[in-house]
């Protein structure tokens, strides 16, 4: 518990708005771009940055983040490079909380304990490993907690009350609610029953903030989710904005920052 994540949620609650959590893929299209991107996201209004660690087989991701992951790997991004990047950003004064978001195999390849200590040293605040559900991630979660990192777990519309409780017990920082079945990606709507799902989760996880993601991409959707949840996660839309900018020969950092500014303006309650 570095405390940065908790402080970010406390601040947004005080300002009567939801925290904006922005996902970007580290190393897409290069780590140099991500280096410039992190302070720009914070400046544009991201309360928390979820930094994707690329993986060759991202089963939970839709086409936008799959392509970002492929671009990042093609550029030679490695987990150690991502950690170095965070360390450099912290040395440069970056204060926004950073949560690493990825898949189990790269973490296991480094070793869970080594991952936790390197990440903590680099100034990472938390980690969410998509394919480590509570059953498989208990030991990892306590390793993270012991190194003052926040373990973040997912909950889904299908998670029964028993699992909500377990996730509430293992998590620190916040709990990430997947808004709908399926993979990450841009969708037009906010799923029906989301308010009910969020209140059910809130009742089960105690005081932990609850953030909602998957399919949230427009300021209108952010506004709708901000009314019911403590945090809103936007990922694919930012990744696509950067992809579009690169294709048009424009600066992906500026494109991401412009979108984040519009999203941040929609987080009020």
């Amino acid at each position, binding site marked *: 518990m570095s405390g940065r994540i908790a402080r970010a949620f406390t601040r947004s609650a005080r300002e009567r708005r939801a925290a904006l959590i922005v996902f970007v893929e580290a190393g897409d299209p290069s780590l140099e771009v991500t280096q410039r991107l992190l302070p720009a996201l914070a400046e544009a209004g991201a309360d928390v940055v979820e930094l994707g660690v690329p993986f060759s087989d991202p089963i939970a991701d839709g086409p936008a983040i799959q392509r970002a992951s492929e671009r990042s790997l093609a550029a030679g991004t490695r987990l150690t490079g991502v950690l170095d990047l965070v360390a450099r950003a912290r040395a440069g004064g970056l204060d926004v909380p950073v949560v690493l978001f990825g898949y189990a195999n790269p973490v296991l*390849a480094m070793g869970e304990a080594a991952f936790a200590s390197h990440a903590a040293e680099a100034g990472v605040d938390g980690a969410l490993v998509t*394919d480590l559900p509570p059953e498989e991630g208990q030991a990892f979660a306590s390793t993270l907690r012991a190194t003052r990192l926040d373990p973040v777990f997912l909950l889904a519309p299908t998670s029964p009350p028993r699992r909500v409780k377990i996730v509430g017990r293992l998590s620190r920082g916040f709990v990430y609610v997947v808004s709908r*079945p399926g993979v990450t990606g841009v969708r037009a709507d906010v799923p029906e029953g989301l308010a009910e799902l969020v209140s059910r989760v809130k009742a089960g996880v105690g005081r932990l903030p609850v953030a909602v993601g998957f399919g949230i991409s427009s300021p209108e959707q952010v506004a709708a989710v901000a009314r019911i949840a403590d945090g809103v996660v936007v990922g694919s839309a930012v990744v696509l904005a950067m992809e579009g900018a690169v294709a048009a020969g424009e600066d992906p950092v500026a494109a991401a920052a412009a979108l984040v500014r519009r999203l941040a303006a929609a987080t009020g309650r």
Partner: protein
Amino acid sequence: MAEKFVVPEADASGRFGEFGGRFVPETLMAPVEELTRAYAKARADASFRRELHELLTTYAGRPTPLTEARRLSAELGARIFLKREDLLHTGAHKINNALGQVLLAKRMGKSRVIAETGAGQHGVATATAAALMGLPCVVYMGSVDIERQALNVYRMRLLGTKVVAVESGSKTLKDAINEAMRDWVANYGDTHYVLGSVLGPHPYPRMVRDFHAVIGRETRLQARKVLGGKLPDLLVACVGGGSNAIGLFHAFLADAGVELVGVEAGGRSAAPGEHAARFGPGRVGVLHGTRTLVLADDDGQILPTHSVSAGLDYPAVGPEHANLAALGRTRYESVTDDEALAAFHALSEKEGIIPALESAHAVAWVLREARKRPGSTIVIGLSGRGDKDVPSVARLEGLEGLAGVAS
């Protein structure tokens, strides 16, 4: 022969020793748990078992024969038998599992099935079972595999299945599994994912094994009959995910005296990306929902694989195999593309049986090793027939006149 091996079974969380488990995103936990319950119920239900047995015998063609390969035996100085899964309907062992899972999907009230396929055999088997039981079916297949298994793609379409080309990653089996999992996570309410090997999150490795264990049960009875009550000395099967191998081995696991050898794809060379031999260079990792031996680089990225046989071209192996190897009960060897191709010809010429390139790997290892074991009895799991491979082998060997068959 009296010596017994204590056969480990998956625990409640699907662990075979340190392998297996359920490494899936939270959204998949509910469908995986639903499937676990439904399968446990079906397995305990005599009417399910009866219905499946009926399909296997009256539709798929079980029991399959155990054929003595007399000319090969004479040449190699060992008694070699072939367990003839190639004679099953659709041409490979895959139909055992496809019928079981589609029957289960019906019982679960699912109205749609999906599958991944590498060589196309599991896709064809699932398409067949879906046609038989009246369920719409979508099969995900890497575009590289679509290219080299054109015949099976057309067979699936004939059976009324929609084949979706997967263009991501290495465009082979692993990417097809990624895509099938993405479909399942979005559509599990009405969709069952018919996973085609002893891979994936619990309960798949155990369930798929159970559906194929009939191979070994039949072999045991048949072998005892021809061997005067004895068991064979050695069983050999090819291992991609490992479904036909575990199906053949399982009824013999307790018989510590029966040697069990799985044969992996040695590909073009031992260099990374040039083969699909997981034992040895593989490290313990997580892929597609299970913890097992995986071909990955130092950074945990899954490595590309190569095999002349699409069905063995996969970077991970079933967790039960990984555990049996760790316990020393089974052992895994590899043969190269060239050895497999030579065996493809040898079995065709000497026994009048054209094997699938996958199965040819098991044959190739026996061709290499049998002379070292004079007088021993060896059963090869002949998991499939080679008709599907004829065009690509013809193309590889430069028989231009035949190459047109593929298109």
